[in-house]
């Protein structure tokens, strides 16, 4: 059962990869333009896969911790915090190399997590409160980003395209700064699987089944924030993948995190690829940012979840 579903997910992913690579070109055309494939499209595919899976896993971790299927890094204000830090770096220190964006975004994400915990945290980390305060925080960070943009009008265009979340103009150099982070973070996330399973039973049960609830929760949140921030640093704020991918994964393979997290990673990658290809082929030659597409697909799905969710 799980194997079959895994194959479906991989198949989806492959189809999406092929789609992005070929795009509007036919196969023969593609063969003759190998450089386009290698230099432009392939690197883009790889980035989409990496960033998409980071977002998927970040969402799965967040939902596991907050114990609310409607939570995701974008909703608790972490993405906005990372965006703010990255925008500030981009605008105030334009001469810095792109590799600095990742540490900046991570710091931004972690600081916003700290603010969130400070504001919403009692010892128990009440899920509803986390979400509400998180939403408020993302409003505030969003306003600060807008303020930065309006005060630096000469750079506004680059920053705007980056902010909506786009894969445009990303190349192999971005792959190399993204990859090492994910090679560390993803396995670290997978080791938390069993603890997250237990956390889903409620704090008291998790504690009595041998979980150090507070520690696991903090660790998972930090991992989720870092994963989301890394992808924000490279692709900008791509919304809703962190929400949709883990949820679809839960429908496919159930609630055991050992299976759920890899599936969420696969689905996240596939979703981002699909969004990217749609963004490119919908209205040529103008390219839409992939982040807009994920929002247009993701928001209705979120609404659908909201209608189904009965846990109020």
């Amino acid at each position, binding site marked *: 059962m799980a194997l079959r579903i895994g194959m479906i997910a991989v198949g989806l992913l492959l189809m999406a990869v092929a789609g992005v690579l070929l795009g509007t070109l036919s196969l023969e055309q593609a063969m003759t333009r190998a450089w386009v494939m290698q230099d432009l499209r392939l690197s883009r595919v790889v980035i989409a896969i990496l960033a998409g899976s980071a977002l998927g896993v970040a969402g799965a971790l967040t939902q596991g911790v907050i114990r609310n299927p409607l939570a995701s890094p974008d909703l608790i204000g972490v993405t906005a915090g990372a965006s703010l830090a990255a925008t500030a770096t981009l605008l105030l220190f334009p001469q810095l190399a792109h590799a600095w964006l990742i540490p900046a975004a991570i710091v931004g994400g972690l600081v916003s997590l700290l603010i969130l915990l400070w504001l919403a945290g009692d010892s128990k980390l009440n899920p509803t409160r986390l979400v509400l*305060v998180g939403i408020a925080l993302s*409003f505030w960070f969003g306003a600060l980003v807008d303020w930065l943009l*309006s*005060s630096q009008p000469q750079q506004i265009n680059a920053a705007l395209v980056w902010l909506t979340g786009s894969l445009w103009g990303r190349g192999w150099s971005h792959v190399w700064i993204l990859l090492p982070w994910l090679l560390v973070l993803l396995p670290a996330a997978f080791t938390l699987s069993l603890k997250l399973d237990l956390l889903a039973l409620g704090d008291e049960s998790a504690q009595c089944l041998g979980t150090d609830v507070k520690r696991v929760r903090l660790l998972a949140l930090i991992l989720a924030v870092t994963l989301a921030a890394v992808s924000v640093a490279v692709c900008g704020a791509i919304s*809703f993948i962190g929400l949709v991918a883990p949820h679809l994964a839960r429908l496919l393979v159930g609630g055991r995190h050992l299976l759920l997290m890899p599936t969420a990673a696969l689905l996240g990658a596939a979703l981002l690829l699909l969004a990217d290809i749609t963004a490119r082929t919908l209205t040529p030659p103008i390219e839409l940012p992939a982040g*807009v597409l994920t929002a*247009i697909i993701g928001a209705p799905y*979120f609404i659908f979840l*909201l209608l189904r969710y009965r846990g109020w």
Partner: protein
Amino acid sequence: MIFRTSPLLSVALLLLLTCGFMMALLGGSTFNLQPTHLWQALAGSQTLATELLLSLRLPRVLIAATVGATLAIAGALMQGITRNPLASPALFGINTGAACLLVVGQTLNLPLISNMPLLQTTFGALLAGAAVFLLGGGGTGRLHPTRLVLAGIAVNALFLALTRTLLILDEQAQSVVAWLAGSLADTDWGHWQQLWPAALLGTVAAFTLGPKLNLLALGDETAASLGGSPARVRLHASAVVVLLAGSAVAVSGPIAFIGLMVPHLARLLVGQDHRILLPVTGLLGAALLCWADYLSRLLQYPSETPVGLVLALLGAPFFVWLSRQQQETT
């Protein structure tokens, strides 16, 4: 019912409003405006300064005050009918919905409708408001605070993404970008002509709803048993909200947080009675937006910050505080 308002309070409020009005009228200009210029303008002399005051500043300040009042009253009505302290036009995606429809109108360039921004924004406000209300559980009569906020987020995100798509696809619509951040910079007497009839109508209608909202505050069942009709009051109030928010957004762009913040401040000042709460909310909202407009010119002097941003910077921490309170009461 006790009116918790003293003459002192009314004086203080009016003073706040007048000061804000004057500051917004005269302050933060590269052209050194003095109160004396105002007298000259009133006396009918025509200098550069008086010309500036009458044709640029005066409409702008009037619009600021009116937009502030309408948005604040819309927020108070929404909080009244949903019995939810987090309800406000911006959080419910009403502002973004209105903005999105306006951009749609600009892009499609339909012959008749494109010239009627009020119609477009009102329809957008209606669309978004209805969606959030229904998604938040309004159909079942059980509105859950978090659920409402989440529904607002989703609807907001959807309209925002649509707006961005249109902006990227259509070069002509680029002029709307500054307006989208919520700005009073380019307003003139033409906008004022557009704004005041709808705002006046909406405000008067809102005031007549006051007593009914008081009943509603007791809970649907009690309100019904005291002879009110909760469903009908909600419907009327929603129509008024759509009119108020739609007309404000058509002129100033989506300005967030006034509708959320001001009703709470007003409630702290005068208590829960909507008959007095709604007018005070209006006054406070007008004063707040005037001051924010003044601030928006000072913040990065001599260039202007969109006033919507100033309010978001002020308002988001308030929202944080409110959501913390929220959790303690539910």
